């Protein structure tokens, strides 16, 4: 009796338990006449089991906090819960993660909501927009008066665009961002040596004082403080010294522990 032709893929389906019953019978008959094939299929089955076993045996932690946060956000999202404030925060974290901020301990503060929104938004906006050499801003410096009117009306506070010329910083322009705690203004400045700084402004109530608080965000330095009606954040690839000088120029107090 000549067995119907057996396809190679049927042998694999046999190994994987995905072959129909009647074809199984045929394959078994085929194997009975071809012992070499039995050895080959046994090797496939063994390697399949070994792949599973060895991958299972690798000690994999349950995932770091970013993964857990994303997982929770996804679960809630898919359960149709209302859009939550911190979901946006998770998305923001994802942006920062992809920008290489991952290993930073600031992330914890970030999740714990201890960093002011103005800093978070300014840092994100800096990461996203400042590298754009063609169109980094919505409104250019030429529209400074328009920007002041627009930003003042959106923030509900008087916004004056600071001149930092004396520090070698030229205004590139600005844009309005949608922060968790209300609108945030991003002003982008460029130094003579081409590095760029973001100044964030918002009308949110920020914990902390009028002295600048300097933190590290991955490769960037950032500072934030409260001044008058506004919360300020400065972000850029810069030195503490430059941050402190600029902040002082903008009216921030100097940290007691520095200088």
């Amino acid at each position, binding site marked *: 009796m000549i067995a119907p032709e057996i396809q*190679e*893929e049927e042998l*694999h*389906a046999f190994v*994987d338990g*995905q072959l129909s019953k009647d074809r199984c019978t045929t394959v078994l008959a085929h194997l009975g006449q071809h*012992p*070499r094939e039995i*050895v*080959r299929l046994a*090797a*496939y089955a*063994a*390697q*399949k*089991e*070994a*792949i*599973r076993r*060895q*991958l*299972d*045996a*690798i000690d*994999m932690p*349950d*995932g*770091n906090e*970013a*993964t857990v946060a*994303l*997982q929770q*956000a*996804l*679960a809630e*999202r*898919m*359960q149709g819960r209302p859009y939550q404030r911190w*979901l946006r925060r*998770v*998305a923001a974290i*994802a942006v920062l*993660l*992809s920008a290489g901020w*991952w290993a930073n301990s600031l992330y914890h503060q970030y999740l714990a909501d201890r960093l002011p929104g103005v800093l978070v938004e300014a840092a994100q906006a800096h990461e996203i927009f400042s590298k754009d050499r063609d169109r980094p801003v919505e409104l250019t410096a030429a529209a400074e008066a328009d920007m002041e009117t627009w930003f003042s009306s959106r923030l509900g506070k008087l916004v004056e665009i600071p001149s930092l010329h004396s520090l070698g910083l030229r205004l590139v322009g600005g844009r309005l961002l949608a922060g968790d705690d209300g609108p945030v203004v991003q002003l982008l400045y460029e130094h003579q040596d081409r590095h760029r700084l973001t100044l964030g402004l918002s009308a949110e109530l920020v914990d902390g004082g009028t002295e600048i608080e300097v933190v590290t965000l991955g490769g960037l330095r950032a500072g934030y403080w409260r001044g008058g009606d506004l919360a300020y954040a400065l972000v850029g690839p810069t030195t503490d010294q430059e941050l402190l000088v600029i902040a002082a120029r903008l009216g921030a107090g100097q940290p007691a522990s520095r200088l």
Partner: protein
Amino acid sequence: MIGDLPHHVAGLRRYALALTGSRYEAEDLVQETLTRALGAAHGFRNGGNLRGWLFSIMHNAFISNVRKRRAAEQELDDGLPELAQPPHQLDRLEVRDVLAALSRLPEAQRAALVLIALEDFSYAEAARVQGIPIGTLMSRLARGREALRRAMGEDRPLRLHLVGDKS
């Protein structure tokens, strides 16, 4: 169904580990997958196949990362390069034999083997995850398994077994 998410994420992590060969990159890939899933969650229908959906997202994320890396180097076929790659970083992990050999397979074959072994995907589901026809999946599976068998030297002791069986 959504209650299975942690289980699926654990599976994604193992799949990512097999694909990338490093815990660090695997976790990155898991996060990228979850981020993409968050963005696409509105398109997922209740009662749909959550596991398949997530694995597809991961597969696409992985492919696009590989493509970015290799864009300048070589032309790509219908999904993943079939050319043999140099051994990748799985060696860094303290694992033996099968995983080390697996890591030397072309990514497309490795992906097929792992999906079938790890998650017990049906062929149809695994093909959907990878966005390829079943026939392509089967040929990758067959080539991958045979390459792995040869790499592990399991084709050599054959004669001994046979002599024993036949006598």
